[in-house]
């Protein structure tokens, strides 16, 4: 394990190692745009905090040397509050990169410098990038990067990442060696400064940069505290004492005017000290920027956040989504691709090709039989799933880039608060309409484990993914009543689960604390690029699953076991009043949600189900089982026990709801 922060690096990097350049910064400051501008590789860029929840990498050629650029999730401060922030901090402290590029939006220089200070305190080799220079000059300001560089003692570079401005200069800086930064001269309160000076040696033993470790300990960081408890319990105690005495006023007992609660004294005074340093430096570097710019008067937010108008806009947005994805995508596009392109042209061609080229009935049936790779995997993925999911991502991309999603979160915060969620949870929940797997990862941006749990519970149970939504709309669209019953039951499951979870799960109450980024017009080129990448990734993710499912089903069929498995599932199908053929789509659903959806679409188009059975099957499929892909993500993020609990809950609730619905509908003679 490497120790760092000391003047000389203890573990010299191996000679062959690639230079590692990490992009770090607050949420939504343009790290991913800069990443794309530097490497030419596209990563997901949106207009809301929390787009990047994982570390992504790409290689970069800098003159003679090869470097690796790493995009990280946004952090407000080194004291991580959310899972995505912990991902970044762990990355920075456990595998310190050769260069840390701190991206700061130029209009918010003073705010950004507070994090620069923390990166410098950790002894990281920091380069400061002032991004969004265009927005600063639009507000009538400019910044003196030379002055800033000499004041901070680190390289500074101005950029407009979305237009590629300033990138050549940044490449020059990155090509050179960047020395570890010297901690900036921040004047901390006496108690804090004493603590850092007195315990420097003991802090160094925590295996982290001592100054950063000390400050994190004073800010009650759970990770560093746990480390201190095991390595040096005495240190943990004196940190607690310092924490209470961190206020320089009133001998640290009652606290000052600013921090009358002693428990918050350390956070406030450490923050104030950094802030004073940052404001001073920013003031010296900024030129001609009005100190307190007037806000725009008539803003679209007056409508988007209006208690009535906002919901009307939301209803319009949801209707547009429904029209594009459900009616146009699942209805017309799927009909045309599946019924025309595949059934009339591609499938007969492929079948005859296979018959002439492939020997053996077994192998032929693996490719083009009822459960063959072509018949199930390729047809399902390309003809049924991709149009629906693709159109959803296209619409979602527009919403993302406009900056509407955080506003939606604000609008529904009070409603979500009753379900134990903050407004920020609206974004992963809507993302769940695309694919629950990616949405589960996106919950890392939520502030507490409790909120993450409630969000994934709601997603696993009562958020239909785009493929399911498309299929349900397609098979039920002929009867508005059936559609209404389906929507009602799913909504009921959503609300019931949310209300119950919000009341029973322990944890802090939901909070809303989020930036509202400026509204921007989405660029069609960017949306097209982003959607294409998402669909590509989606296909790459689902095709192997579909193909594997085909092979397994084929194997089961040839060995005669398929009949056995379907017989075993029959009681489940019968329990909810579905015909025996339905056990097959349930089996498909185990592999992937969208696979089950496509199976149901197939079953429904053969006319094997009556209206009641269609509604029940639609409800069952929507609520039923988080698919294999999501199970794996759930296990990675929440552990086996929690995942097992979620699965059991979803399984029981789904069958109970479908069974009750079937009995209820039957009682009314449907």
């Amino acid at each position, binding site marked *: 394990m490497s120790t760092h922060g000391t003047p000389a690096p203890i573990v010299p990097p191996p000679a062959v190692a690639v230079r590692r350049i990490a992009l770090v910064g607050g949420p939504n400051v343009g790290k991913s745009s800069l990443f794309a501008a530097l490497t030419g590789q596209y990563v997901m860029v949106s207009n809301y905090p929390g787009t990047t929840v994982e570390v992504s990498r790409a290689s970069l050629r800098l003159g003679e040397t090869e470097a690796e650029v790493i995009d990280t999730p946004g952090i*407000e*401060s080194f*004291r991580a*509050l959310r899972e995505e922030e912990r991902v970044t901090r762990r990355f920075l402290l456990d595998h310190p990169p050769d260069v840390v590029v701190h991206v700061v939006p130029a*209009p*918010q220089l*003073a*705010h950004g410098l*507070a994090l620069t200070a923390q990166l410098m305190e950790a002894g990281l080799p920091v380069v400061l990038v002032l991004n969004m220079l265009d927005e600063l000059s639009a*507000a009538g300001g400019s910044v003196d990067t030379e002055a800033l560089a000499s004041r901070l003692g680190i390289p500074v570079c101005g950029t407009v990442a979305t237009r590629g401005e300033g990138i050549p200069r940044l490449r020059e800086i990155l090509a050179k060696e960047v020395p570890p930064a010297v901690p900036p001269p921040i004047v901390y309160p006496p108690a804090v400064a004493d603590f850092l000076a007195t315990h420097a040696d003991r802090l160094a033993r925590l295996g982290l940069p001592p100054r950063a470790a000390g400050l994190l300990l004073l*800010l*009650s960081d759970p990770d560093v505290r746990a480390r201190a408890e095991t390595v040096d319990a005495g240190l943990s105690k004196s940190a607690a004492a310092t924490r209470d005495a961190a206020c320089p006023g009133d001998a640290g007992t009652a606290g000052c*005017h*600013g*921090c*009358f*609660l002693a*428990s*918050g004294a350390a*956070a*406030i005074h450490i*923050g*104030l000290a950094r*802030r004073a340093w940052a404001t001073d430096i920013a003031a010296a570097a900024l030129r001609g920027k009005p100190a*307190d*710019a007037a*806000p725009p*008067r008539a803003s679209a*937010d*007056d409508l988007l*956040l*209006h*208690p009535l108008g*906002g919901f009307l806009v939301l209803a319009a947005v949801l209707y547009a989504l429904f029209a594009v994805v459900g009616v146009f995508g699942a209805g017309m596009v799927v009909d045309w691709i599946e019924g025309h392109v595949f059934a009339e042209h591609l499938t007969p061609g492929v079948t005859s090709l296979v018959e002439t080229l492939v020997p053996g009935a077994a192998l032929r049936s693996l490719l083009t039989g009822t459960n063959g790779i072509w018949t199930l995997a390729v047809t399902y993925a390309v003809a049924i799933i991709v149009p629906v999911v693709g159109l959803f991502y296209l619409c979602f991309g527009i919403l993302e880039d406009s900056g509407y999603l*955080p506003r939606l*979160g*604000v*609008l529904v*915060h*009070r409603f979500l*608060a*009753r379900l134990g969620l*903050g*407004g920020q949870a609206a974004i992963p929940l809507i993302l769940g309409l695309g694919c629950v797997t990616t949405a589960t990862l996106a919950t890392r941006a939520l*502030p*507490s484990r409790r909120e993450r749990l409630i969000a994934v519970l709601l997603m696993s149970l009562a958020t239909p993914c785009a493929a399911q939504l498309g299929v349900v709309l397609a098979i039920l669209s002929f009867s508005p009543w059936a559609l209404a019953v389906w929507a009602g039951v799913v909504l009921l499951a959503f609300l019931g689960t949310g209300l119950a979870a919000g009341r029973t799960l322990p944890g*802090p*109450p*939901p*909070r*809303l*604390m*989020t*930036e*509202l*980024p*400026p509204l921007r017009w989405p660029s069609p080129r960017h949306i097209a690029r982003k959607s294409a990448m998402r669909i590509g990734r989606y296909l790459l993710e689902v095709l192997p699953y579909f193909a594997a499912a085909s092979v397994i089903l084929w194997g089961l069929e040839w060995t005669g076991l398929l009949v056995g498995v379907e017989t075993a599932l029959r009681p489940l199908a019968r329990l909810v009043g579905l015909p025996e053929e339905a056990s097959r789509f349930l089996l498909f659903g185990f592999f992937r949600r969208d696979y089950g959806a496509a199976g149901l679409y197939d079953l429904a188009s053969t006319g094997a189900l009556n209206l009641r059975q269609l509604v029940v099957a639609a409800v069952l499929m929507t609520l039923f089982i988080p698919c294999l892909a999501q199970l794996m993500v759930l296990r990675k993020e929440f552990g086996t026990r929690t995942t097992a609990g979620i699965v059991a809950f979803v399984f029981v609730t789904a069958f109970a709801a479908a069974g009750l619905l079937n009995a209820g509908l039957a009682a009314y003679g449907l």
Partner: protein
Amino acid sequence: MNPPGTFGKLVPLETLPAGARATVRTLGAADDHALLGLTGLGLLPGARIEVLRRRPVFCIRLDGACYAIDLDLARNILVETDAAAPAPHQPVRRRWRWRSGRNDKHAV
């Protein structure tokens, strides 16, 4: 517009009308997590803020950026309002505002 007679007094952020400008004086968040979140945004004693809107949640302007925070948090932030300043959009907005007494009922 700032309510008359509030200049120089400490009041909860929650009580300020849209358009008011103030300086943060005290943060009394309910727990560490909330407090660290607020200080992370730069909401510290001495920070200058402007209330952009009160509904559906509090939206404030700080350092040229706009943040949304819920009423519970806004209640525990004590601010000192600026000397009364004219707020041009006040008369137009008034019609659309809900009665101010409703805050507490909606708090969760």
